Structures are given as C-alpha cells and as structure tokens.
C-alpha cells in the first residue's frame, strides 16, 4: 500500500488536533458520539426492494458515463467558453420557473412563489432571457428550489421505493411520478408546451443536458473515486438531499 501523505506526519496532525481557541466550557469529546447514536435513528432512509435490478442499471449507467459521457464532456468543455456554458445553464434554470412556482404553490408557500416570479421576471428582462442571474443580487428574491415531488413529500407522501433510471440516475417512485407533473408545467415538454414543434423541444432538451454534462461528470467522478460503495453512496446522497429539500 502506498500512501502519499507521510503516515507519520498525518498521525502527528491527528494526535495534536491543533486548536487556537481552546474552550473549557465546550462539549466533552465523548458527548459527540452519544449524540451521534441518537441521530442514527433519525437518518432518512429509502426502501430498495429492487436493489439487484437497480445495481444492474447503475452499472450500465456507470459504463455509459465512462465511455460516452466523460469523453463527450471533455470535448464540450474544450470548445465551449466558460461564460457561455454558465450562461446557458442559467437560461435553462430560469426556464424551469413554472415547475418551481407550482412546487411552492402546492406547499402553500405563496410568498416564495411570488419571489420565484420576481426572480423570473428580473432574470428574463434585465438578465437577457435568463443568461445572467441578476436576481441573485437581490436578497429579497432569494428562495430554495421547489418541485412537485417536494410538495408531495411535505404532504407526507413517502418515496415508495428507490429506482435507478437508465441514463438519468437515481429517483424514487414518488419523485418519478411527480416529474410528470413538473413536465406538465415546464415550458418545453408537452402537453402544455409553448413550443409546439417536437424536434425543437427535443433539441432544447439536448442542449440543456449537453451543457450540464461536464459538471455532472466531474461530480460523479469525484463521488465514485471517494466512495466505498458508489451505489450506496448515490442512493444515500439522493435520499438525504430530497429529505433536506422537503424539510426546507
């Protein structure tokens, strides 16, 4: 085993536990672990009755990302200037306003729904179609992202069970079903589309996905390399993230 950081110096660092502001009225070292066991009971979890099948799809996705997604992401990043890549991400985020608006309304968060509307108007007008996130400069317009799946969670609807979707990745029965509701209010897909031509819609979706691929690939690589079991890591990250979004 080859460990790059000197084991001795690392051990010294760990033993020393450098501190600048020692507090005598703080917590006992052991108290942190007692608390930890209590918290263990409350961790969000998800049923995974189809784990075997999910792992097969997960491995398929992994292979797809590795052989197609990553080379593509590298090429795209090389040719696309960073500001354009960022601007395009902003445009697509801005276009998902109806879904966030619906998520807020369904949770009775009318104030946040209003802020979302304000953000959308500011970014679309002053931000040139959402290319620049001008609304971020206005603290009064800041919100958290909402969607219909979160609204269902707030109403007490559980995940049902965990599913790994081909190419798309982690989801749950609840969130997968709610995606259809999100799509219904999204300006791009049918049935309530403002863009009626299906090939144009398909192209817009493809550009959105293409533009996000480099960042997603980096994030995925980083997770995979540091995880003991990448499948469990992704499943847990999905569950925790959704639980926190519902709680917020």
């Amino acid at each position, binding site marked *: 085993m080859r460990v790059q950081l000197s084991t001795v110096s690392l051990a010294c660092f760990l033993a020393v536990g450098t501190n600048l502001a020692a507090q005598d009225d703080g917590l006992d070292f052991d108290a942190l672990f007692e608390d930890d*066991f209590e918290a263990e009971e409350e961790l969000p979890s998800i049923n995974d009755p189809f784990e075997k099948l999910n792992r097969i799809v997960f491995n398929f996705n992994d292979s797809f990302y590795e052989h197609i997604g990553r080379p593509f992401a590298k090429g795209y990043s090389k040719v696309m200037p960073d500001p354009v890549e960022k601007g395009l991400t902003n445009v697509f985020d801005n276009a998902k306003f109806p879904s966030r608006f619906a998520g807020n309304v369904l949770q009775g968060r009318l104030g946040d729904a209003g802020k979302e509307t304000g953000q959308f108007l500011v970014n679309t007008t002053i931000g040139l179609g959402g290319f620049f996130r001008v609304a971020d400069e206005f603290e009064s317009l800041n919100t958290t992202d909402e969607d219909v799946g979160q609204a269902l969670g707030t109403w007490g609807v559980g995940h049902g069970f965990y599913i790994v979707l081909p190419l798309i990745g982690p989801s749950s029965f609840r969130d997968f079903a709610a995606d259809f509701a999100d799509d219904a209010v999204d300006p791009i897909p049918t049935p309530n589309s403002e863009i009626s031509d299906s090939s144009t819609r398909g192209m817009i979706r493809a550009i959105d996905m293409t533009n996000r691929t480099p960042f997603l690939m980096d994030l995925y690589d980083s997770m995979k390399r540091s995880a003991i079991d990448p499948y469990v890591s992704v499943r847990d990250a999905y569950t925790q993230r959704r639980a926190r979004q519902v709680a917020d």
Partner: protein
Amino acid sequence: MRLTKPSTIVAIFLAILTAGYSAIAKLSPQEQLQASISEVIEILHSGSDIPTDEKRALVLEQLQTRFSFDIIIRRTLGRNWNRLDESQQDRITILITDLLIKTYTAELASGEKPQVNFLKTEDLDSNKIEIHTSVTYKNALVSVNYRLANIKSRGWQVYDVLVEGTSIVSNYRGQIDEHFQTKSAEELLDVIASKIENYDSE
C-alpha cells in the same frame, strides 16, 4: 547607544505572540473557518511549481486547525467503530483522512479558483452551529455547509460537512453499515487503501 536586554526582547516577542493569539481567538468561528478555507484555496491554486503531494500536506495542515478528522471519522464508523481493534481504528483514521484530502484537493484544484460565499451561521444548540456557504465553481453553484461543535480544549471544530444537503459523515456511515453486513474490517481497510492507490497512480 544602550543595548536592549535579551529578557526584554523575549518579553516583546511573547507579547507579540500573545497579541496574535488573542486576535485569532477573538475571531468568530465563521471568520476562523473563512480564513482557513481561503488559505486552502490559495494553496490549491498556487501554481504548478509546488508538487501535488506538497500541496496536499499543506492543505491537511491548514484544515487540521479547524477540522477534527478523528471525530469525523469515528462518527462515520458509528456503532461499527467497536468492530475494529485499536490498530485498525488508527489505520482507518489515517486512511479515510488521506482519502478525503485527496478527493478534496483533486476536486477543488481543477478548473478555475472556486469562489466561496459565506452566507450565515445557524445555531444548532448551545455548543453546535452550522455555517452555510455557497461555492461557485465549474460554472455551477453548490451549497456547502459546515457543522461545528465547541469542544473542550479544542474550540470550534468542524465535525461534519454537508454538500448539497448530503452529510459526508452520514453518507460514509451508510456505506460502512452496508459493508459490515457481509464483509470484515480488514476488507474495509483494503477497499479504502485501493481507492487511495487510484489517486496515487495518477
């Protein structure tokens, strides 16, 4: 000209040191963390003339002032901590710290320098806080929150990090729990060591 006595020089030196210490101690936990994170980003983007290994060592040294890795790692093991003997506990602490540092440096050193925005500090209870930040990098905005506890004789120390709402400690714990359902402590150490080797082979 009258020469200053050595004892006076020592006294002045100690006074300066004490003043520096007090100044740092007076900083809020958020300001202390902010200073450390800024320093880490500076190290990671300090140019290619410093070897990666050296950067990692400097990053660890800097993070060590604010992050209690021994606590973070013992928490990731949770109840499984007692399945390891003392030697395995020491090894896993070193290995996971090494893996975290390598992942962290690889992620943040690539691309443009990340912009960290410290948003707010939330009280979790009398001795625990959560510092909310957003990080802009690789054309994306990522939420990163640090949970700190005020620990006797250590001060405010990071004991968990949440990336986009996902706790690193809980995430590892889930994986380790699942690992121990079918495998041993030695196998766990081997898996982590092989992950580190992947970074080292680059």
